[in-house]
């Protein structure tokens, strides 16, 4: 039997190596990308630059650091200066991050829990009218992309009915008590959140239901029933517990791609999260900002994956055995 330490150190080491490679790739990013800030800034403008001016401007916005310096700056949270927003990249980043976490985190947790419980209950009632219509509806919903739901919701509830704000995460410059502020934030959150839940929930529901249907056929579920356990315990402690793994995988994958996942919805609702920030940065070729956000997004994938490996062993003792 391997020691615990050995078991843990190996994946962590591998992940560190992968992280280093990612950082290096992000260091190379500016040289790999076509276009630059200067070209982007002056492309639509009436001003035309002569060759000397252009060269000087480009030299001004170009930073020549070695990989070592880059790495050091990274750790010191000095991620460069955004030329487009006139602010340090880290300031911009940390201003946007909470909103994305609030939006995406809530959406993921909500859609996963809802999907899991309703999927489990649906599988338990397999063959009933409720279950059949549920599966039908979810299959249709699964096919509608979030860009479509988002645009529709914005159009109807915000622009037409005016029930919800069309942009932002909070009302600017308002004098509010904390409670009012929370309500205000929730008010702004509603439409993007509904869009995301509508996009993620059907998949979770179908996955949970399918997994549960398979598990319910297993011998040990019959054993649990035979033991005279209450139905709720049979359903959750025995059956659903075994259907959890694919759902957790899906949750992890979605969570890892939080920033890119937020891109569309945040843009539609002009929500001030990382998605919007990235979108703007790309349209203005603001290289340090792009670099920062992309690096964060890719490191996020690694971190989530590492967490998942650990969560798997918690959920299913057979996983640690298999590796």
């Amino acid at each position: 039997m391997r020691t615990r330490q050995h078991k843990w150190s190996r994946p962590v080491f591998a992940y560190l190596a992968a992280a280093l490679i990612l950082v290096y790739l992000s260091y190379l990013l500016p040289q790999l990308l076509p276009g630059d800030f200067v070209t982007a800034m002056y492309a639509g403008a009436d001003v035309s630059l002569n060759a000397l001016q252009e060269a000087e401007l480009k030299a001004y916005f170009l930073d020549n650091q070695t990989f070592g310096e880059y790495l050091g700056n990274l750790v010191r949270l000095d991620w460069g200066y955004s030329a487009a927003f006139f602010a340090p990249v880290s300031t911009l980043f940390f201003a946007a991050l909470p909103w994305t976490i609030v939006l995406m985190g809530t959406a993921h947790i909500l859609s996963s829990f809802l999907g899991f419980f309703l999927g489990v209950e649906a599988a338990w009632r397999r063959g009933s009218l409720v279950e059949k219509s549920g599966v039908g509806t979810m299959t249709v919903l699964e096919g509608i992309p979030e860009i479509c739901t988002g645009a529709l919701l914005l159009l109807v509830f915000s622009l037409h009915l005016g029930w919800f704000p069309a942009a932002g995460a909070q009302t600017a410059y308002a004098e509010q008590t904390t409670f009012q502020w929370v309500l205000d934030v929730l008010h702004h959150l509603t439409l993007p959140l509904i869009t995301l839940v509508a996009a993620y929930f059907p998949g979770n529901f179908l996955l949970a239901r399918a997994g549960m249907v398979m598990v319910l056929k297993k011998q040990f579920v019959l054993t649990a029933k035979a033991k005279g356990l209450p139905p709720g315990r049979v359903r959750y402690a025995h059956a659903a517990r075994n259907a959890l793994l694919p759902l957790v995988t899906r949750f992890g994958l979605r969570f890892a791609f939080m920033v890119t996942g937020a891109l569309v919805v945040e843009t539609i609702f002009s929500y001030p999260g990382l998605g919007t920030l990235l979108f703007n940065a790309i349209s203005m070729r603001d290289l340090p900002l792009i670099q920062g956000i992309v690096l964060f997004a890719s490191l996020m994938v690694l971190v989530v994956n590492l967490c998942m490996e650990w969560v798997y062993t918690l959920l299913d003792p057979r996983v640690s055995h298999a590796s």
Partner: protein
Amino acid sequence: MQVHIQNLRVSYLEENHSLLALDRLDLTLHPGRITAMVGESGCGKTTLGKAIMGLLPDNARLRGQILLDRDNVPDLDEARMNTLRWSTAAMVFQNGTATFNPVHRLVDQVAEPLVLKGTPRKKAMAKAVDMLAHMGLAPEMARRYPHELSGGQAQRGLLAMALILDPPLVILDEPTAALDAMTKAFIARVIQDLRVRGKTILLITHDLDLAQALADDIVVLYLGQIMEHLPGRDLLENPSHPYTLALARAFPAMDAVRDLGGIRGDAFYRMVHAHAGESGTDHVHTHVAAPDSFHQGGHAPPRGCLFQPRCTQAVEACTRDEIAIMPSGDHQVRCLRGGIAQLLCFEQVAKSYGPIKALAPTDLTLMAGEVFCLVGETGSGKTTLAMIAAAAIIPDQGKRIFQGRDMDIWVKKEFTSLAPKIGVIYQNPAESVSHRFTVFDIVAEPLRIHKMETRTEKIHSRVLRALSDVRLSTAPEFLQRYPHELNMGAIQRVCLARALVHDPDLLIADEPTSALDPSVQAKVLKMLLGLQIEKGLTMLFVTHNIGLARKVADRIGVMVDGRIIETGPAARIINHPGHQYTKMLINSARGLSDTPQGMSQVYR
């Protein structure tokens, strides 16, 4: 706890028909007794276990009564049933590891029912660990997950889990399947211990040795019907129903000496379904069909004996009449013929040739479907006895009864109807065929003599079938061969084909393989036994070689000087010979050379 099952009928609904899993089953389980249920897969054994636990799937339809003391399971609502489960009736499911939830520790799963019945968690865990230890699983084993257990450990864990609430009724579904002999013995001891403690035990198993060793009562189930209900000790050596005999013959019991024989045909599922009858109305009926053939197999009779298509002693009435289960001694048998029938019975049959007494007055009984081996030295009267059985020799005295009719009268009055029922393979194959006959004529001769077929093409097709049954060529050139062109093995097969071409009920084989070398002999014997199973033949096999007899026989009779000195199940004769001469015969067959010359003189 007394379990009283009455008129229980369970069927599984499928798309347009239903599968009848249990049919009007009556059974009582008593406290302190082990009732074993045996039968092929798909006969409804597990269904019964699940029905008692109230665990049948949603598509199951149940009629009749299952009384657990006073509670009738089909009448109970789910909540009440749930209070009975595990505390009153617990079940050890088959397939150990898969029965456990893979994500919970063994001890947690064992303790779970206790915790939910209100025992404090700590106490429950301690009790679970104790119970597991009682089953031979150490505490560190208890902390393991199911996938970290071996099959035997999982099985012990299952037992511990089933017994944790100390239920009065325990249902064990294949508790020893796929286990090694030591674990099996351990589990057998646990089950015995449960009986001593007055539990009611239903043991569902394929393992006839285990059933015989443990069970007080044995129920033989076939396609959802009880075929035989017998005391445990009789299962392997004294079954009454042809199906029980066939099961015993197919089972690799430790004592068995005969090569394993299967049961001819396949177990079918019984379907109940409705479709438009000729009058255009739907009518519901039962029929037996192969699971993959549905309608192609045609409509088997909805009435009559279920086992009849595979039975070795079926008569025409078996396909017609509804057969009830009837007492027969201390057995209960569902058979129109009252259990395994006698095919041939000799009472005090004797024969002498002038001054030579070839056969002293002898009693002999051949049961339908069995292989009876006559073993003895040359000149002990084996062939005489065989030829009397074949109706080729008229005995001087005694009574012969064949298929319930007096053979002597039958021979005199209608020999033509008797002769086709018997097939004979003679001692010397080369001498028993006419050298002027072709292969085709040799095999066709019985059909022609008995006028069983008159149309040439019919004769032709039956001859070809007989030849292919014995794995001989059916090419036209081969049919035109003469015996001297064939080797001994092929001639012996031609003789076998001739003996079987008219579908006899009784096959008498007199030293059928003594002229063959061992490798050919092995092939011919294997084929012969295969045909015996497939055609349901009764066989009287005469040989001087007790080593051969032990591989062939269900029962053995030992002959010395015109007398049968010992008969009995082959296993008993070989393993525990009763007569001194039999012991000598076995020893000499083993190559122990201390046997005196002419020993039959000594034991006259």
